[in-house]
């Protein structure tokens, strides 16, 4: 029989006040298999661990049971202690007599008895424990980054600069994302494109980055370090290998459609690049709007192309790749104005969202940076900005704060004032959240130097009256109703996760929260990992955030990926459920209950096979298996039955 040592921890008075330690020690001393029982005030302390180490050696112990707090707290600590003196870590078991005993009971006699029974049952488990070694898994050192906005760009560059290969997948034809649409950035007012485009070029030129735009993730299988992905390259109808990006086709194309990049303020052609600084700077043909695809006539682009790059017969293609880690950086959309019935349901041309106003302010935008309103192109002399539109409104829209609006609206008002000196900007706000380096100073500047009028209160109604947009709101500081006959209104709409993210998360098997944003593994301590190993998060897909926060988070994400790639092997917990091939009848019940796709039925052999890396040791299959062939390591049926007997013995 094995020689088991039991170490009972007082945990100060946490355990000792409710459990009679002396009685427990005495009880266990006579238990079969137990050769030593030792108590100590704090077993997890250095002296406590030293006692364990000494006793393992002096008493020639084969296994130990530490009766203390929950295994989630210190199981790892004590297993490492065992390892340093040459004992297999899996020969160390924890009997939880704190959370499951002393903390939840008041009666000392009852608690003491319960502690004894818990420890006895764990001794029974320890007696039959096998020595186990972690499963080793190789790592494919190549990352897949989904999304080519600033988050994806930063993550891709950072991983690539660490020397690992990256595939960057973007669904639009160019990378750049939302940041490329912005005018100037708070709080320094540097031009967004000027700081972004060099990074876009870096991505395109980086030898470790394979850029796949106009593409989307189609399928995925595998696990951390060993994902197999299938990427769908949408039909571009332009052979980018032949295309030089001369732009002649765009010039000659007779068909126009609203420009997504310019938020519909301007038209683009049916063959187009989203913006002049696009990377890659090659056009695609928009199937929905192209005259040739609609009527079978035109082909002007094909005729003018001197490089024979236009190919109307092009179809979508699929690329299969193997990667070790995936970064989800799919960004955000703006909640549409048409959801706001009180602000005109999107029917008033001079009531626009903040992103559209960014295009109006942008020097590369449709007005060349002059502030002109969409309806008639006049310069608005009074402009009202409304914040928290859809955000912080749990009753009608979304409960969360979209975080960036306070600062960008302040910036909007400031930039407007810089361009229209005799104009008057008003901002309706709930409160101003200017937390960030230089943000409060920026907000102060808007009030003091740019004469932006801040009105604390909500706007109840916006309506068109002749050529004015009338804004009815309340100023809660003065306690009076306010009516402003403005020329234009800009709504700081809520930030939403990008369209299609929900389907993507289903594909990746990662979680989203009640608002549709990706869920991190731990809100404080693991903010850039998803709950699925090997899948990481960055940018507004996880939660609304501004550019500095996005870049910081994407860098952190890249660091986690590099961390993963720096290991030669991944170690996987060996507490898994295998298959006893002699007992397995190949019924496949375990396959259907496995939540991790770890079990597969081999029909030829008539048995089930297990992927040890995918198995998380949840035990579902062990419970379901009718023949006892699926035995979880160190949790066998015999062990469990002995444990139950020990508990029922008193």
């Amino acid at each position, binding site marked *: 029989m094995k020689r088991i040592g039991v170490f009972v921890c007082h945990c100060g008075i946490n355990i000792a006040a409710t459990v009679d330690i002396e009685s427990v020690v005495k009880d266990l001393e006579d238990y079969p298999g137990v050769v030593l029982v030792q108590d100590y005030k704090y077993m997890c302390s250095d002296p406590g661990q030293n006692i364990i180490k000494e006793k393992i050696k002096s008493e020639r112990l084969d296994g130990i049971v530490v009766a203390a707090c929950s295994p989630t707290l210190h199981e790892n600590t004590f297993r490492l202690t065992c390892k340093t003196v040459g004992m297999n870590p899996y020969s160390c078991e924890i009997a939880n007599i704190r959370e499951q005993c002393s903390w939840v009971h008041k009666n000392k006699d009852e608690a003491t008895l319960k502690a004894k029974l818990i420890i006895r049952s764990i001794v029974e488990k320890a007696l039959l424990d096998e020595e186990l070694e972690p499963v080793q898994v190789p790592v494919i050192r190549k990352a897949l980054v989904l999304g080519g906005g600033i988050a994806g760009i930063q993550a891709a560059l950072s991983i690539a600069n660490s020397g690992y290969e990256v595939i960057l997948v973007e669904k639009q034809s160019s990378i750049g994302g939302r940041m490329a649409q912005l005018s100037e950035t708070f709080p320094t007012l540097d031009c967004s494109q000027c700081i972004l485009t060099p990074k876009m070029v870096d991505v395109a030129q980086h030898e470790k980055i394979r850029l796949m735009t106009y593409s989307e993730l189609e399928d995925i299988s595998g696990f951390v370090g060993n994902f197999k992905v299938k990427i769908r390259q949408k039909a571009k109808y332009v052979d980018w290998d032949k295309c030089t990006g001369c732009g002649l086709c765009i010039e000659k194309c007779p068909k126009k459609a609203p420009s997504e990049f310019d938020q519909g303020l301007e038209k683009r052609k049916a063959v187009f690049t989203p913006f002049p600084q696009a990377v890659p700077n090659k056009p695609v043909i928009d199937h929905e709007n192209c005259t040739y695809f609609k009527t079978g006539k035109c082909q002007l682009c094909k005729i003018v192309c001197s490089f024979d790059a236009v190919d109307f017969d092009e179809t979508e293609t699929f690329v299969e790749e193997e990667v070790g880690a995936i970064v989800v950086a799919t960004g955000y959309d703006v909640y549409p104005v048409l959801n706001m*019935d*009180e602000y005109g*349901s999107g029917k008033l041309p001079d009531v626009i969202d903040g992103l559209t106003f960014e295009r109006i302010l942008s020097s590369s935008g449709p007005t060349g940076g002059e502030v002109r309103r969409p309806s008639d192109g006049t310069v608005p002399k009074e402009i009202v900005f409304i914040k928290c539109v859809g955000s912080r409104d749990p009753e009608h829209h979304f409960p969360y704060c979209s975080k960036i609006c306070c600062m960008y609206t302040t910036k909007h008002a400031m930039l407007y004032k810089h361009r229209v000196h005799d104009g008057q900007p008003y901002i309706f706000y709930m409160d101003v959240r200017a937390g960030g380096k230089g943000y409060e100073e920026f907000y102060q500047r808007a009030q003091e130097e740019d004469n932006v009028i801040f009105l604390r209160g909500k706007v109840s*109604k916006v*309506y*068109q*009256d002749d050529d004015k947009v*009338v804004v009815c709101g309340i100023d809660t500081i003065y306690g009076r109703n306010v009516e402003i006959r403005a020329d234009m209104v800009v709504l700081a709409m809520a930030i939403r996760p990008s369209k299609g993210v929900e389907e993507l998360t289903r594909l990746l098997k990662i979680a989203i929260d009640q608002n549709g944003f990706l869920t991190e593994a731990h809100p404080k301590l693991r903010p850039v990992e998803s709950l699925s190993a090997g899948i990481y998060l960055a940018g507004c897909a996880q939660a609304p955030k501004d550019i500095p926060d996005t870049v910081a988070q994407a860098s952190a994400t890249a660091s986690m990926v590099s961390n993963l790639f720096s290991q030669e092997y991944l170690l996987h917990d060996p507490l898994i459920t295998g298959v006893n091939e002699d007992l397995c009848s190949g019924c496949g019940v375990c396959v259907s209950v496995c939540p991790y796709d770890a079990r597969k039925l081999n029909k030829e052999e008539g048995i089930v096979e297990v992927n040890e890396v995918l198995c998380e040791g949840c035990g579902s299959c062990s419970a379901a298996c009718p023949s006892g062939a699926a035995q979880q390591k160190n949790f066998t049926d015999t062990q469990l039955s002995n444990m139950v007997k020990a508990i029922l013995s008193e």
Partner: protein
Amino acid sequence: MQVSYYPGCTLKTNAKNFETSALAVLDRLGVTAQELEDWYCCGVCFSQASDNLMQQIAPIRTLVKAKESGNPQLLTLCTMCYNTLKRSVEFIKADEEKLETIHKFMDREATRFYGDEVDVIDVLSLIKQIGLDKLKEAVVKKVKNLKIASYYGCMLLRPKEIAIDSPDDPSIMEDIILASGCENVYFPFRTECCGSYQIVNEPDIVKTRAKKIIGSALKNGADLMVILCPLCYYNLDEVQAEIRKEDPRFQTLPVLYITQLLALLLGLDLDIHDFSLHSVDPRPVLKRKGLL
């Protein structure tokens, strides 16, 4: 098709023309509204003013009557009654404990009411349920360029839990107007409160609002305004006459119950209207547009 019908007090006094026109229109559209026997006052907005359960008794007794009538759809014409009854239904459904207390109090009633048994419905939703196509077919007088401003008021739209349409951008009245062959005038104050009971103590509030609402409808080209609520009717029709007395330059706009307009378009008996009840006489406009 048959529905049970709860008139409420105003429909039997000041708003007789609303009742007669609505019942006649529904009759033409094939719906019989069977008036509840022995009905009570709905309790008006006072029943919703505090959480005193006693105040719920009046609307619930009415709902019990409706349940007993065996016809689960209960039509209310007055929007105030609609609001009161519908909110009582929601109140009961939301709070089992309070429902229990109410049941204990109402121990002499033979019937118990749990909230789901009666569907309180307003006349607009009922017409929509009958079908706008059917309404279109029933129209016998085709009019040209009759521009209608539909005024919703609050009671059908707020709170949003009982709203019959979007509280801020509704369209059900405009849909009905369009189906009846008239033109819609959109004006920004169609869902603005008329001032309601402030007419009793602070009539100036109502006058200011009436000016704003009527002025906005006129500015957008309305020939007529149609409404549903007897109180809105008072505040927008009667008050116009008072404003006119103070300010002779004030331009008036005739106000009709939407069912009156429909009755005219369906070519129903003119006796149901009693135009003497109107402060701003609609007859000149109606004559001009060929409806009289």
